[in-house]
């Protein structure tokens, strides 16, 4: 080590005093020679050998030869690239797109699949899940398939969690948590926030510290303890202005005072990738905060998710056995009916190193598709560059031959050429980084399928390492073969020859043609894929939703978290409805549980007298609780009967409106209007379970545009017992909807300051959001397809232009011998067309084989959709045809006299 430091210090000194070093070397050797001559006379100089060579040798020892060579190479490369700006521009842009896109995808993959949670020893963490038949009545959480393909669920009853905490010795900590939306009033403004309810050992068990203040401790997680919260860094930044004094402040969560005791580490975005909670609250506060779903003491309601930290030296099997020993009796106490069909209820583990596996699972599909697309684009860009470099290598044969003949080593020249490639790739990658943030946003939306997700994907060192590696691999991929080829020069003819002469290029053209065919094939594949996604989007956009989506403003209000319940809550909503309806420009207002085409849905069993399904079960219907004038406001045509009014309240008979599908499926032979259907438990019927049908309306899309419209019943929300929860208001306007947005906010604030208006958007935006995934797929794959086609065209143009230049002589002779211009043009064009045809012949079957893999992402078309394939083929042929036609025309303009004189 010391030796290295001494070495560097000495070399640095030598380097910084370059002239002094030269003089010293000179003097030292001169002294030696002088001594020799003095003592032994003439002749000693000859014995000494080549002074200059020794000096070179010594100089090399003192200076950083490799670094200096690299620097020289870089400067030379930069000069060469500046000399051919068109080539450089195409190269850098195509690399920037290719590397940038790959970097963006990588950082998303890294954030949600590869990266470990920023916690202590994340590899010890296990997500505790269950499989088999759930023995409990309720489950709030997620279901997914784990890696083994088994259906797993995530949540456990709180009493069971408490029992497990102290009885699994293999876990040093077993953390419990659940997500909940809350309303926060901080200062004068209130807003909705994502809360994570956590057990007292959550932070200490994970090993996450507070950036400011402290984290939640077991002491906070007790009934009767003072209510505290830890906020995320993101929330601290967005809502508390990064004020250090925020710690110690009191905010109101669902109307209850809670003291902020700390800010979590900036890197910690929660344990669900993409989730990013705003605040963490002790799980003991759950009921106090008036949670709508979670009941702490109910052993029949599963809602707590668990993650355990396995003690070193214990095995998964031991821990699972301990869990199972407690879970089995709990399961026996619950209902066992489902176990018979779905197998025994038992615990399973999933690796917790990257957090909850949820997003990872849902993101795999889109990421695979996008990842393949961007790798293909990069591959095409590489092929293109390799091609351009081959052509350049040919035109630089003379330069290279000269350098070889004056003694440059082949290795040295290859290094020089590769330096050029590296420089290109480096600049391309640097520029590509500029594409990453916008692409990241798009891709993040895509994997979150509309739902806002926060991923820790940003330009960190891992991403930069990836980019650097990508650039390097890319440079080798496109630079190595041309460099090897270019330096394999037969000197004599190359030196004799004037410019880019004929000798020895036949094989080069062969390689180029092969590359072009490959590019055309890959581009056709991408274009066909793009066609499929564009057609899917078009199909989805042209779906008639069954209601008038234009001029409809939507916004959400939830008064239930600000102390409103039951009739007080409906009273608040009715007041808002009336006041908003009075805003100038508003034609009519209604409200519903959730927006149409929002992906949310609710369904239930229903008994229809006189209707028997084949399996003897009660039929299923989708339901939606809505306000008065729902059909009129949404523009759903009434086929028979009347719309809801404000008189359909608690004191009036319960009424419902069914859609056509409901009427057709369950009242095949009669008019449903005036008939009744029944909800609830058939064994213990209650009077309020009876709902009288007052109208039949036309079918309207419910949660997704692409789904078949299910049997649906609309109910008056005013008739809901113990009504609770938030509603979406639907406002039909005469003006562009967003024009009244601020008036709406003022109106609601004037009625109740503590109830915020959230998610103001138009119904059309809502639909666009719902189509977000498809839209982005079509956009991304489409753009990449076009870029790829363009690159292929450039490649084709390059090869043909070079070929024409090379054959100018031959063409001149042909024309002198009487060949017509049309003939020559066709001769050249034919060559391009051959390459295109070969590319298509390879590309289309490949596309047919591969597009089958994206079947699930398509709507209304088959993966072998003829239109998409024909369009891709034609587009590719036209673009490539144009690229081939330009050199062909140039060939036809060759002046035979001049061409022949050229030689």
């Amino acid at each position, binding site marked *: 080590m*010391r*030796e290295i430091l*001494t*070495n560097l210090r*000495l*070399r640095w000194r030598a380097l910084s005093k370059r002239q002094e070093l030269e003089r*010293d070397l000179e*003097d*030292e*050797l001169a*002294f*030696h020679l*002088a*001594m*020799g001559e*003095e003592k032994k006379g003439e002749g000693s100089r000859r*014995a*000494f*050998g*080549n002074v200059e*060579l*020794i000096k070179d*040798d*010594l100089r090399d*020892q*003192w200076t950083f030869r490799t670094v200096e060579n690299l620097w020289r190479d870089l400067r030379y490369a930069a000069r060469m690239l500046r000399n051919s700006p068109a080539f450089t521009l195409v190269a850098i842009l195509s690399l920037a797109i290719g590397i940038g896109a790959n970097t963006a995808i990588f950082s998303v993959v890294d954030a949600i699949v590869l990266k470990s949670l920023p916690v202590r020893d994340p590899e010890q963490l296990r997500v505790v899940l269950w499989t088999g038949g759930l023995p409990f009545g309720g489950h709030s959480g997620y279901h997914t398939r784990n890696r083994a393909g088994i259906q797993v669920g995530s949540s456990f009853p709180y009493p069971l969690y408490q029992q497990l905490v102290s009885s699994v010795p293999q876990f040093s900590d077993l953390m419990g948590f659940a997500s909940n939306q809350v309303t926060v009033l901080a200062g004068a403004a209130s807003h909705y926030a994502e809360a994570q309810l956590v057990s007292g050992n959550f932070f200490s068990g994970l090993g996450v510290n507070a950036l400011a203040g402290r984290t939640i401790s077991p002491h906070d997680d007790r009934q009767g303890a003072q209510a505290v919260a830890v906020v995320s860094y993101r929330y601290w930044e967005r809502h508390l202005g990064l004020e250090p004094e925020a710690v110690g402040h009191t905010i109101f969560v669902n109307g209850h005072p809670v003291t902020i005791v700390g800010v979590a580490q900036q890197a910690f975005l929660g344990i669900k990738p993409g989730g990013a909670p705003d605040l963490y609250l002790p799980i003991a506060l759950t009921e106090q905060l008036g949670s709508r779903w979670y009941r702490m003491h109910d052993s029949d309601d599963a809602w707590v998710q668990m993650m355990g930290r396995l003690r070193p030296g214990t095995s998964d099997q031991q821990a699972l056995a301990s869990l199972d020993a407690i879970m089995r009796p709990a399961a026996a106490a619950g209902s066992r009916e489902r176990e018979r069909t779905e197998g025994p209820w038992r615990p399973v583990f999933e690796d917790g190193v990257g957090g909850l596996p949820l997003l990872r699972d849902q993101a795999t599909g889109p990421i695979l598709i996008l990842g393949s697309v961007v790798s293909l684009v990069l591959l095409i860009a590489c092929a293109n560059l390799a091609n351009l470099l081959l052509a350049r290598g040919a035109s630089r044969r003379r330069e290279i031959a000269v350098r070889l003949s004056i003694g440059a080593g082949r290795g040295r020249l290859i290094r020089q050429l590769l330096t050029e490639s590296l420089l290109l790739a480096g600049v391309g990658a640097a520029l590509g980084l500029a594409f990453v943030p916008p692409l990241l946003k798009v891709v993040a939306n895509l994997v979150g399928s509309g739902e806002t997700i926060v991923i820790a994907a940003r330009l960190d060192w891992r991403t930069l390492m990836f980019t650097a590696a990508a650039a390097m691999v890319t440079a080798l991929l496109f630079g190595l073969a041309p460099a090897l080829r270019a330096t394999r020069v037969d000197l004599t003819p190359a030196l004799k020859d004037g410019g880019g002469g004929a000798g020895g290029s036949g094989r080069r053209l062969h390689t180029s043609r092969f590359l072009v065919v490959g590019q055309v094939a890959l581009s056709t594949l991408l274009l066909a894929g793009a066609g499929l996604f564009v057609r899917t989007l078009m199909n989805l956009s042209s779906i008639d939703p069954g209601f008038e989506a234009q001029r409809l403003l939507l916004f959400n209000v939830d008064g239930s978290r600000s102390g409103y319940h039951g009739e007080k809550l409906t009273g608040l909503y009715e007041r808002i409805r009336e006041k908003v309806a009075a805003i100038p420009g508003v034609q009519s207002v209604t409200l519903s549980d959730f927006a149409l085409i929002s992906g949310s849905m609710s369904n239930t069993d229903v008994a229809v007298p006189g209707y028997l399904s084949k399996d003897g079960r009660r039929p299923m219907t989708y339901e939606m609780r809505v306000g008065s004038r729902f059909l009129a406001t949404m523009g759903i045509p009434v086929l028979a009967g009347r719309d809801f009014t404000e008189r359909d309240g608690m004191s009036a008979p319960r009424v419902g409106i069914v859609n056509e599908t409901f009427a057709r499926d369950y009242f095949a032979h009669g008019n449903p209007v005036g008939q009744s259907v029944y909800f609830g438990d058939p064994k213990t019927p209650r009077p309020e379970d009876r709902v009288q049908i007052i109208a039949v309306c036309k079918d309207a899309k419910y949660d997704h545009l692409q789904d078949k419209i299910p049997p649906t019943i609309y109910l008056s929300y005013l008739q809901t017992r113990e009504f609770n929860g938030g509603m979406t208001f639907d406002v039909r306007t005469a003006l562009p909807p967003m024009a009244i947005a601020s008036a709406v906010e003022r109106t609601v604030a004037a009625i109740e300051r503590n109830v915020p208006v959230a998610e103001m958007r138009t119904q059309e935006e809502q639909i666009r959001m719902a189509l977000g995934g498809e839209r982005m797929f079509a956009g991304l794959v489409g753009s990449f397809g076009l870029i790829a086609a363009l690159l292929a065209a450039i490649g084709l143009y390059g090869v043909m232009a070079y070929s024409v230049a090379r054959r100018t002589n031959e063409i001149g002779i042909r024309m002198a011998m009487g060949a017509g211009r049309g003939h020559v043009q066709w001769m050249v064009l034919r060559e391009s067309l051959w390459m295109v045809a070969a590319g298509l012949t390879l590309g289309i079957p490949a596309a047919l084989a591969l597009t089958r893999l994206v079947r699930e992402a398509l709507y209304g078309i088959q993966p072998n959709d003829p239109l998409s394939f024909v369009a891709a083929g034609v587009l590719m042929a036209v673009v490539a045809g144009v690229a081939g036609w330009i050199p062909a025309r140039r060939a036809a303009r060759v002046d035979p006299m001049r061409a022949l004189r050229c030689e």
Partner: protein
Amino acid sequence: MGENKERTTGVLQGTLDMLVLKALARGPLHGYDVVEHILAWSGDVLKVEEGALYPALHRLELRGLLGSEWGVSTNNRRAKFYRLTPAGRKQLAAEASEWARLSSAVARVMEA
């Protein structure tokens, strides 16, 4: 580089460093005297090529085994004098004992 190897025996690459260190063990010398010393002490057998000497001197200097300074030679010329650093002294001791072990082993083999 090395063109003439007639008169004297060349010096093995590995042993050159050791010989240079040894030559400098008694005190600072310039390059020419290093050659002279080695030649004299070896009874005019070991002639170090200048083409090998100077690279070796600079290599040892860069490794921190030798220090150097410019001074004036006996005939009033500007000359670069090399001297052993403590690290160089340690290195010499190590190489000397290794050499003794090796050469006596070789000698034993040849006498057997």
